[in-house]
């Protein structure tokens, strides 16, 4: 399987009709198209079904067997809706806000490694780029909130900006701990360093007695980065109707919504690359049962990273439907007085382990 697929991707890479690297573009675009079409669509469907089962109800059941075609129906509906722009809204900002959000959310997919060969851009500062792209979302949110000409939207946008900007710090420091363990910032290198016969034992989470702390800190901070509950006060439905995207309807709303699920997948993928091995198989080789070798390869790699991403998405949804939301000042307290000091402690301890114990 791996052999034939590698030759297939080699063949595609050498396909140069009219001298243009169309084959390479297809290789890079394939995972992105997969994510956008299926992962997000079924992410939305999954959220509705998972939340339904947690709340003792069924969720979408009508459209397609078990409601599988629900999101497609929703997208079709949103596509044909009237695109309403407020008369008093700042038209330029109103239109560009969702665009920036969407672009920012998907730009990070360029550095996500879906397999040994499938990566959009193998930057040697991949992780740094991924963290920095999140900052672009802030501009999009502000544009959306201000451009709506709605006091509630403005409230939501300002809260969201404060939240995202504050939580970038513990998130970045936690990733930095992971980068210290790897000694590099390149996403692909992270995966290669966690490759091994021991399966999940060679993941960074288990290589280091202190690695669980940055893992946990990054997970919590990433919830805040993507405005998910319990940090969803910017889109607090009961206070601000819908926060910064109150005034959006139709396709623009769909774009913002998809951008949120896109960034959910992105942070899940980042955390699984840095701490949980990315496209490496978690199954160890036990004696002659070479589970690890059997489950490694280009297609298997894509499978593993997507499964790990979905696992973290499931946990994010689980938390959303269980916990109430934190108030704005409690949120800020959590960031500055709890997560940031612990992130620094984790940083120092990781550094000590790496230098002296290894």
């Amino acid at each position, binding site marked *: 399987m791996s052999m034939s697929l590698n030759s297939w991707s080699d063949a595609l890479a050498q396909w140069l009709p009219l001298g243009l690297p169309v084959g390479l573009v297809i290789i890079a675009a394939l995972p992105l198209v997969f994510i956008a079409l299926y992962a997000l669509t079924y992410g939305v469907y999954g959220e509705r079904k998972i939340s339904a089962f947690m709340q003792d109800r069924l969720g979408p059941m009508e459209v397609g067997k078990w409601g599988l075609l629900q999101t497609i129906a929703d997208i079709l509906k949103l596509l044909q809706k009237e695109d309403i722009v407020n008369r008093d809204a700042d038209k330029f900002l109103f239109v560009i806000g969702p665009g920036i959000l969407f672009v920012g959310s998907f730009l990070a997919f360029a550095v996500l490694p879906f397999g040994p060969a499938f990566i959009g851009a193998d930057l040697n500062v991949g992780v740094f780029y991924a963290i920095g792209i999140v900052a672009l979302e802030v501009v999009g949110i502000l544009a959306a909130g201000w451009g709506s000409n709605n006091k509630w939207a403005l409230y939501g946008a300002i809260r969201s900006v404060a939240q995202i900007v504050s939580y970038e710090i513990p998130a970045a420091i936690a990733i930095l701990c992971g980068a210290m363990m790897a000694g590099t910032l390149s996403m692909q290198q992270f995966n290669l360093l966690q490759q091994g016969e021991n399966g999940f034992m060679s993941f960074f989470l288990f290589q280091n007695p202190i690695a669980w702390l940055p893992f946990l800190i990054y997970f919590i901070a990433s919830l805040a980065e993507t405005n998910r*509950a319990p940090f969803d006060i910017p889109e607090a439905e*009961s206070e601000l109707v819908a926060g910064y995207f109150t005034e959006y309807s139709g396709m623009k709303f769909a774009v913002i919504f998809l951008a949120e699920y896109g960034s959910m997948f992105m942070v899940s993928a980042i955390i699984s690359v840095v701490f949980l091995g990315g496209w490496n198989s978690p199954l160890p080789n036990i004696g002659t049962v070479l589970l690890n070798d059997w489950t490694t390869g280009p297609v298997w790699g894509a499978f593993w990273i997507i499964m790990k991403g979905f696992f973290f998405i499931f946990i994010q949804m689980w938390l959303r439907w269980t*916990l109430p*939301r*934190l108030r704005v000042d409690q949120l800020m307290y959590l960031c500055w007085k709890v997560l940031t000091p612990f992130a620094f402690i984790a940083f120092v301890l990781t550094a000590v382990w790496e230098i002296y114990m290894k």
Partner: protein
Amino acid sequence: MQELEQAVNRSVRVIPQGEGRVTIEKDLSSEEMILNMGPQHPSTHGVLRLECKTDGEVVTEAEPYLGYLHRCFEKHAEVVDYPGIVPFVDRMDYLAAMNSEFAYCIAVEKLLDVEIPRRVEFMRVIVSELNRIASHLVAIGTYAIDLGAFTPFLFCFRDREHIMSLLEWASGARMLYNYIWIGGASFDFPPGFKERTAEFVNYFRPKALELQRLLTENEIFVKRTKGIGMMPPDVAVNYGWSGPMLRGSGVEWDLRKHDPYSIYPELDFKVCVPDGKHSDIGDSLSRHLVRAYEMVESLSMIEQCLDKMPDANGFDPRSAIAKRIRPKAGEVYGRAENPRGELGFYIVSDGKSTKPVRCKARSSCFVNLSAMKELSMGQLIPDLVAIIGSIDIVLGEVDR
């Protein structure tokens, strides 16, 4: 110099420095923003408009504007005869319709010379307590969803569906029952109703405990509600608060115990007052806890009623109801303990006609909401939502 001083804003101070020079100091105070919550808003529990003056996230004043659901109950009551007012009373506090009918019938029966059959008394108490549990479930569920916990809302509504089925079985309607009539009730309990109610009581007891654990022991929920919206007991009494609001401030006052009606003196229950261990007495969490404890007390009351209730054997609950309800001349203020507080009816009858001269509904939510302006001063907007949720208003009763 004076003209200059008067010409500028009051946030600017002009200080003469002598020799014709001045220093102008401007305060960097931010302007107040007027923010309108409602009348269409997911968390105001109905069509309530709150005009908030905010300074950043801090609300300096939140004034409620009512009247969006005013349906002229009192004017209708003057043209409809006494039994015909019962459906109107249902529609005031639609979440606790049985309790509202109970209050109205007690008020009118004070002016009549009628002896209510003992079985009817037990029937009335059972359906009232069931409706109290249903109403508290809505209060708790919507409070949770206001604070962002989406799941308890659905758990509460799932359990409430069982109660609505029971009440539909007894009265024919899920929410607006027209069941408790002046002098009796409209239908007897169907066969098997007592057993199903007992089943429900056993089913719901562990669920009530689960709800407590899911919310009350959740640290985020406690942090959002503890210490928010403190109301000292004497101010609460002065505002006319009653029911769980007053008990949440520590005042032990329950009309079922302290001004008893119907067969409540025969039932053994305690007045639920928070003990101060989980919450600060007088804050939103106390009020929520009172409702949660009251649900469990209602369960035990229903069990006692089911035990003590006399048997049926072809009983007609309409036997004591006269053909024409014509109360003697006089006036009465009759009240009962609604899930939201004291629902009172001031009824004036002239003894000759079958329609009241005056029927004023003293609604609990109207009085509870009047304290909103004072409670909201200096709170953050998310806390404002927490306070409104703990007051548990139903706009149908506020506006009548």
